[in-house]
């Protein structure tokens, strides 16, 4: 019996089948995926723009490939992502700087982690999000967990072949395509009659507010004194 292959916001359940098992395939070049169906890029972009403009707490999750300036196209892409973010009302940027399971835990307001993306989504009540610059393997892990456990509308701006488990997936997305999407967002915003002066999203809440120019030993490694006893010092107790 064929199962319904509609990929819509969750929560889809305890352990939903991945879209690829349901017969959803990545879009061919020049096309996009919308709820698991192959559509024109324009159609997919409009639906994605609408989600980011109308759903609660829209957020962009940039991954390592745009966060780190490892080549000129990454830097250009990063610029385009910031331009896009400033056009989405009350948009936030929450980065995914790496893929390790981070010990002891992440600060869900400051970052998203592919091993437990739901922490960030649920804590911030994010109902629409964009993944960009995340390696496909890790994006797919996150997209599945998010669809399983949250009601978040996921949009994947993929530089490669796209993602079946996102509600909207574009493929071969580079800086210019992000700007094209930004134009669609602006257009859709006008259509919906939403007033918004472009401005950059608020900065990462984990960053100290003051100018941070020096660092004291107290800032790092609270066990430093334990692990590195000074000459003649006798350590009497540990935690």
């Amino acid at each position, binding site marked *: 019996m064929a199962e319904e292959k509609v990929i819509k916001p969750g929560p889809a359940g305890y352990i939903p089948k991945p879209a690829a098992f349901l017969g959803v395939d990545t879009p061919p070049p020049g096309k996009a995926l919308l709820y698991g169906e192959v559509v024109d890029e324009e159609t997919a972009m409009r639906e994605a723009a609408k989600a980011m403009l109308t759903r609660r707490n829209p957020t962009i999750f*940039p991954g390592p490939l*745009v*966060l*780190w*300036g*490892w*080549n000129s196209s*990454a*830097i250009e892409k*990063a*610029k385009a992502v*910031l331009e896009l973010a400033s056009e989405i009302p009350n948009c936030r*940027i929450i*980065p995914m*700087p790496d893929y*390790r*399971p*981070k*010990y*002891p835990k992440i*600060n869900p307001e*400051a*970052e998203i982690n592919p091993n437990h993306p739901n922490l960030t989504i649920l804590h911030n009540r994010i109902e629409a999000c964009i993944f960009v610059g995340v390696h496909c393997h890790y994006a797919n892990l996150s997209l599945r967990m998010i669809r399983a456990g949250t009601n978040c509308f996921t949009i994947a701006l993929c530089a490669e072949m796209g993602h079946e488990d996102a509600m909207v997936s574009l493929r071969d997305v580079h800086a210019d395509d992000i700007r094209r999407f930004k134009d669609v967002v602006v257009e859709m915003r006008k259509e919906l009659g939403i007033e918004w002066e472009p401005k950059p*999203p608020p*900065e*990462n809440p*984990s*960053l*100290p507010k003051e100018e941070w120019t020096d*660092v004291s*030993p107290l800032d*790092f*490694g609270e066990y*430093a004194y334990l*692990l*590195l*006893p000074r000459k003649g010092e006798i*350590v*009497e*107790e*540990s*935690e």
Partner: protein
Amino acid sequence: MGLEYVKISPGFERYMPRDYVDLVKMGQFGRQVDVMDLGQFKELVEDHPMCAGCYMAYFIRIFYASLPNPEDTIVLGTAGCARLALSQAAVPFIYGNYGDTNAVASGLKRALTIRFPDKHKDVVVIAGDGGLMDIGFGMTMHSWFRREKFTTIMVDNEVYGNTGGQESGMSPKGVQLKMAPKGKQFDKINAVELAKVAGCVYVAKLSPTNPKRIAKVIRRAILAARHFGPTFIHAYTSCNIEYSIPTREVLADARNREKKDFKFYEWMTDEVKEYFEEMEKKEVKA
């Protein structure tokens, strides 16, 4: 390239979590730090789930602070305690299968040599006594026989700590551990002599009591591996849990062992000795 991939894209400094910003601004990338300045720069590894008072965790902390070129270093580990901290460090880490480190490192180092013939990409294995001298023994030895150019560091806690305290080939004779209910029946394996006969060009054995010396040994092992062949460090990193060493006595235990069977030992080929002498002469001049 190396350094480029640890620079934040312009404009994103204000969106990165603080620890990453600190890592770039006040970390070790692109500069040499002094291990005695620990606590005054952002370290490559901070939070990790190793036990309180773990001496292996201390050694690993010193290890990361000693890397000659952290942005071009890859660390490999295997099952065991060390990987708990290694997987949290800001240096690429490979976790393969049980005891496979020295085989994976062989393939990796060769691939990097093919792809980047003009660059130094340092490959370092940090695995336990079980990983290197028991389950991975054949692969450890053969990577040395083949003269693979990477560093192997054995963090020897003389027990399978992570699986609940079983005897390993490196446990001392007579010690009662799990799977050795009558006490271990044979001697501790002489890993250092094995390394020498198997073809390592630099071999050191130490109990980590002196951070400056640990740093020097690690640096030497990595630099010698770049140019000459396999290098090996055998470090005593006690398991305070399975050997019931009170946290406050961990350092004293290390000092005690240093006096007994972990007296500092360093051996290298003449070629390597010459290289270090040249290098140190230049450093003095500079």
